[in-house]
């Protein structure tokens, strides 16, 4: 068992350092780059915190939808192949829900402030209202 603090806690601390100490006390390109670096580290904390649960759910969903076994990379490649070949499409039950769930999980890590993601969240929650 590795010791604490957890990687995501340490990475978050480095991100705060870059933002509060480096970016705020420099100017121009260096300040900009420090902010970009801090944002990248914050992305990594979100990934470390959510990836295990999100990918376990994705794998379960893929196995059920494709009726086959395999790891995440293999099953995703197979889903991509079937969609590209037109062997399955959005009319097949579960396909649209799977694509929505996995894409929203990506955005929650990559770009949680992206306006298109915020709009999608609103639209999805409106749909699930009775």
């Amino acid at each position, binding site marked *: 068992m590795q010791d604490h603090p957890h990687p995501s806690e340490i990475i978050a601390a480095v991100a705060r350092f870059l933002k509060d100490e480096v970016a705020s006390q420099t100017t121009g*390109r260096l300040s900009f*780059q420090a902010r*970009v*670096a801090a*944002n*990248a580290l914050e*992305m990594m904390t979100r990934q470390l915190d959510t990836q295990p649960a999100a990918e376990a759910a994705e794998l379960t969903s893929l196995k059920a939808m494709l009726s086959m076994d395999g790891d995440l*990379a293999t099953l*995703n*490649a197979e*889903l*991509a*192949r079937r*969609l*590209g*070949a*037109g062997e399955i*499409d*959005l009319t097949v039950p579960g396909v*649209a829900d799977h*694509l*929505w769930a*996995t*894409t*929203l999980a*990506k*955005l929650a890590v*990559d*770009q949680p402030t*992206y*306006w*298109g*993601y915020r*709009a*999608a969240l609103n*639209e999805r929650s409106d749909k699930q209202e009775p």
Partner: protein
Amino acid sequence: MDEVAESLDALARHRLGGTKISGLTRLTAGASQEIWRFNVIANDGETPLILRRAPGGIRVSETAIGPEIEAALIQAAHAAGVPVPIVRWVLTEEDGLGRGYVMSCVDGETLGGRIARGETFAHARTVLAGQCGAALAATHRIDPDAFPTLKRLTPLEFVTQYLDAYRATEWPRPVFDLAFRWLLDRCPAPPESPRLVHGDFRNGNIMVGEDGLRAVLDWELAHVADPMEDLGWICANSWRFGVEAKPVGGFGLREDLWAGYEAAGGVKVDPDRALFWEVFGSLRWGVMCSGMFTSFRTTDPVVERAVIARRTSETEIDLLRLLAA
């Protein structure tokens, strides 16, 4: 910078009708192109100019048309009535500045978010979509035969080119496959008369002032293809900067863009064809973002590239909202 300043001093004396230069500033650090701003000092005053160049040793990107043809195209666009900077000099080997050209400096804003949301541009936004339509109509009047080296692409070839680029990344993105299937099932026939298209006409590549459109920039992806491609690309989600109700670059309505295009002599707009190119626009930008991973891992492992690669998922959510709402 000293080397560039020295060469530009000589250029000012020999080619630009001045005595020397001042105020040399580098504006961007593009991967394949550099943009510099400087003033030429002459007896009758100072003139601000822009140098766009691919310095020696830096490879011009494979998809780009090359600075000499870019300069010729900007001159042809000017003659056709497109608002563009005036090309003052195309670099030769003797100039010692690499490949590129010098053009007039047009005042205005290029940052998409400011154009879409800034108070300064409130009036500009009421006329900009129509002006963009007119600028595209003029662009599509440029004679493609004058530019025989530009790529000729049918809609199917263009989609296939990006499908190949996506497959080459060897990273499964089921939403991309869904979108490619959608596009291939609806791929329009080659246009009756292919036109010279700008190829990257979007909010971010136009210079805008308080009065509206001042110049169309960044001609390096020009090719000969379906003119509706340009009208769809500027409407892709990726250039709306959060202003979803204004599909044209976050500042205007499709109807105003199309009306401006038709009024300025463009062919009648086919809405289905424009929508096809709009969906392709999101996918094309997605493939471009995901390509950042390749250069990150192979040649240029900087944080900025990694972060742009991680913006690919923005286009995946955009595509789902278009195709699976």
